């Protein structure tokens, strides 16, 4: 599903972000990316949804070589990939419903689909009573759930989460990862970049460690 072959990427010559990454993530896998800040976790995720291009090497997603993908095809790639961020990236002027339906609207989905799919996914993440609330009326955990709902509403094949629990307390963090685990059980490939040692140790799934842009370890049931 996701394959990195000898990927090198640098934002400038002095700060390489990824150095010779070889990584293969299978369909329906749940992978934690761990490592210190600046280790290359976010850069690796950004390569997957083609926000950045490596200087050398190949990145394959859905068997397509992203290094050769023309710009006009990127939106269609991203429709199959959900992305979650630490800072949620929600629109403050839109309600919970509006934020989630937006992801369908930009794809030109008909109103009928919006009316059916949005309440369905919001119920699934446990926010069916908050449809009309605005992001600033929600707790951090609830905002992250909205973000997850927005990522899931398009039924993505891959879900990428960049520090999804970074702004949350430990209890809420566990709830969010449990939710992500449920997403994974339903068949979505999941890649979670995190600093959260407790979460990684608690969920015991494949863990890839990146330090200074290099892949240091890749354990199938690893901990932090």
């Amino acid at each position, binding site marked *: 599903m996701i394959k990195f072959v000898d990927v090198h990427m640098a934002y400038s010559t002095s700060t390489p972000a990824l150095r010779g990454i070889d990584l293969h993530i299978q369909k329906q896998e749940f992978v934690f990316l761990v490592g210190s800040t600046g280790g290359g976790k976010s850069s690796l995720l950004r390569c997957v949804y083609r926000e950045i291009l490596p200087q050398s090497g190949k990145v394959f997603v859905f068997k397509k070589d992203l290094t050769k993908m023309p710009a*006009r095809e990127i*939106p269609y790639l*991203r429709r199959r990939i959900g992305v979650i961020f630490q800072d949620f*990236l929600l629109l403050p002027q839109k309600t919970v419903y509006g934020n989630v339906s*937006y*992801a369908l609207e*930009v794809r030109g989905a008909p109103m009928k689909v919006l009316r059916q799919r949005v309440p369905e996914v919001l119920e699934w993440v446990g926010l069916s009573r908050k449809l009309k609330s605005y992001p600033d009326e929600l707790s951090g955990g609830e905002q992250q759930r909205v973000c997850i709902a927005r990522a899931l509403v398009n039924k993505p094949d891959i879900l990428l989460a960049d520090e999804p629990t970074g702004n949350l307390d430990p209890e809420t963090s566990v709830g969010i990862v449990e939710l992500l685990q449920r997403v994974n059980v339903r068949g979505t490939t999941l890649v979670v970049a995190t600093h959260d040692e407790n979460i990684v140790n608690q969920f015991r799934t494949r863990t890839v460690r990146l330090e200074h842009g290099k892949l240091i370890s890749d354990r199938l049931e690893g901990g932090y």
Partner: protein
Amino acid sequence: MRRNPFVALTHGLQVIISLMVLGFFIMLMVFIGAFLFSLRNMVEVYAFLQTDLPAERYVEIDKMLRDIPNVKELQYISREDALKKFSESYHISVEDILEYNPLPPTYILRPIDVTKIESLASRLEAIDGMWQVRYGRKEVTSLMKVLVGVQVVFALTMILLLSATFSSINNIVRMSIYSRRREIRIMQLVGATNWFIRWPFIIEGAFFGIIGALAAVLIIYMIGEAVYSLLASLEIFLPTIVDVKMMFGLLALGTLAVGLIIGVISSLTAANRFLSTEMRRIEEMRRMEAV
């Protein structure tokens, strides 16, 4: 824009003023153009033949003149007709005074290309049997030169005004894009195509262009009305070079079209620039974060 209402208002006013001045210039250009056109129609070359030529030479000359290029219209005035016209115009009988007709047979030629009037005149002068060739050489050419010069200056000014309008709308849309950059980023992440992102801004640019043009047309109309009634009250003679109502209609349509086109192009440029630089900006931001 919501963050900078004063700046947006300033740019909006700039759009209106630029389009208004542009409208005035278009109007003046049309007036001068129409005047030049009518002037060109008014330019005539008078070819007077000698009075003592044999009859067959007159026939030959007539044939030669009819074959001459760069002539739109050729009119022949016989000696008798010329005398009749003269007598009618001045209310005198020449034959009573001179006992003979002194007026020569005359041809009036209207050239197709007025700029080549001199070569036409020299060609006529070279014809054997020609007595005199006359046209308002200096007056016509110098007036035309001045008017063409004025048109060139106006055209250059119009380009400047178009650039100013373009820049104003571009700035408005850029501010709008900047205030919605978070939304654009979300749109990109959830798979919106670039055209989907561009459309609202193109509509916004077109809206500003049309509103600016409408305001400009309205102001031009009000000023035009005021000037016209002032001149009418002063009983100043106004030559009817062009149909004023028709010209104003065309001007309104032209200004609206210019506003719309500039609005669309400038917003498209702003959106394209943003979309192409956004990736670089994000990378730069991440790089700074990494450092």
